[in-house]
């Protein structure tokens, strides 16, 4: 309990919490590690701040960065990634073979039609089945229902057009499966073809092309990227 910040003290006085329940900054990275480990799912920054009840947002962000860099530097078996609007602990891709062997699970199948269709939905959402079919030149009903079942896409509404066709969009699971912090991590379409960019979202520069709506970038600083 050596280092106690101003905000820390305020909270303590205000809420009358037990001192032991307060997070001091020194052990913040370890504390966050516990929270992320326990949660399993990506935890939004706001939820971390709320659970820690004391440290400020920027202090939590800084601690996340310390944690992410520590994993990298020490070559640990865990990585901190920013994905689907939150932070999550994941295994590094280099360990996939062993983890898979242990879990004995079949990896999810991502066929080319599925990937192409979900890519179109991701960029053009909300979009209709007809739009997808026009781009791919093949019918899309079966692959869309697979994607719906896998929760990679969802119905977001109906288009105010003849026949009121269903409109599709991507889900948070889509971001999680592909390790994307948010939709703005997708490159602009103009940049496509210049390989590799997708696996390094931090390289993406805004070229003013087609880009999905970008939420506030403030939460994306310590990008412990899965790539």
């Amino acid at each position: 309990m050596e280092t106690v910040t101003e905000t820390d003290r305020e909270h303590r006085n205000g809420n009358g919490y037990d001192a032991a329940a307060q997070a001091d900054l020194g052990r913040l990275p370890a504390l966050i590690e516990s929270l992320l480990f326990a949660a399993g799912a990506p935890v939004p920054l706001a939820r971390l701040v709320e659970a820690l009840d004391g440290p400020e947002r920027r202090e939590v962000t800084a601690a996340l960065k310390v944690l992410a860099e520590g994993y990298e530097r020490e070559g640990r078996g865990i990585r901190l990634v920013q994905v689907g609007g939150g932070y999550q602990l994941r295994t590094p891709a280099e360990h996939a073979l062993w983890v898979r062997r242990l879990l004995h699970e079949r990896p999810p199948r991502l066929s080319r039609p599925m990937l192409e269709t979900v890519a179109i939905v991701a960029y053009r959402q909300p979009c209709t089945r007809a739009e997808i079919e026009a781009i791919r030149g093949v019918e899309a009903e079966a692959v869309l229902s697979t994607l719906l079942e896998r929760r990679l896409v969802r119905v977001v509404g109906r288009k105010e057009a003849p026949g009121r066709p269903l409109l599709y969009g991507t889900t948070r699971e889509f971001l999680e499966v592909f390790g994307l912090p948010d939709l703005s991590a997708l490159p602009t379409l103009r940049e496509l073809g210049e390989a590799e960019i997708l696996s390094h979202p931090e390289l993406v520069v805004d070229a003013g092309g087609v880009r999905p709506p970008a939420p506030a970038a403030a939460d994306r600083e310590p990008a412990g990227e899965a790539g």
Partner: protein
Amino acid sequence: MEVACTVRLPIFEGPLDLLLHLIKRNEVQVSDIPIATITDQYLATLEELPELNLDGAGEYLVMAATLVYIKSRMLLPTAEDDEEPEEDPRGELVQQLLEYQRYRDVALALGERAVLDRDVFARDPEALGPPAAGETAEPCVRDASLADLLDALREVLRRLRPPPVHEVAGEEISIGQAVERILARFVMAERMEFTSLFAVDRTRAEVIVTFLALLELIRLRVLRAEQPERFGAITLALAVATVAEATERVHDLGRLEAGWRGEGEHHGDGDRDG
């Protein structure tokens, strides 16, 4: 170097994919397709295919026709009295190919990412508690999908009390009535838990009618089903300003008067199995 190709259809994800393959194999630009060569190769590929299922074949054949058409247009001499600049007959196809190629590249890149449960792994998610009151919630509240709603429905049905042995045939409720009943509850509260919607339902039939009514209201965008946490509780919220507006919207769409009443009566007599 590629070995002489015996191409089989399943490799290709459609006519555009096949065309891009041929263009690449011939080392030519998409923007300047040697249409005669490509058309010949395209048709030759189709003939090599042992069996085409009818659905898939249609798409390939339409493209074949398009290619032959473009080829013939390119052979025709340009009309001399035509003032307008000659349009490249390939133009539309080129645009289509370029666009498809872009998405095909994204798809490739997505497939190469560290995919969850294939390349990288995380612990199974625990449900997080609801955010504290006053705390700004997530920037975007996740809408519950149909699959989420069905999961929740399954839970409601599971918890349903077993039917009493001597069940007095209660009054049947139509979807239209269920819609009105649901809307009435939103007069008091703007949002409510998914499960509390079914608090008054006693039989499977009632639960299902209520559920169908709920789906209809979501479809009409009168209600929203939100699920802030994955696998968490689903909350229903009014998507319009007032219940009066909601009722108006429902009536405008003519559903209450037309289909539902009769429908409810028809379905009313079954489903007593609990």
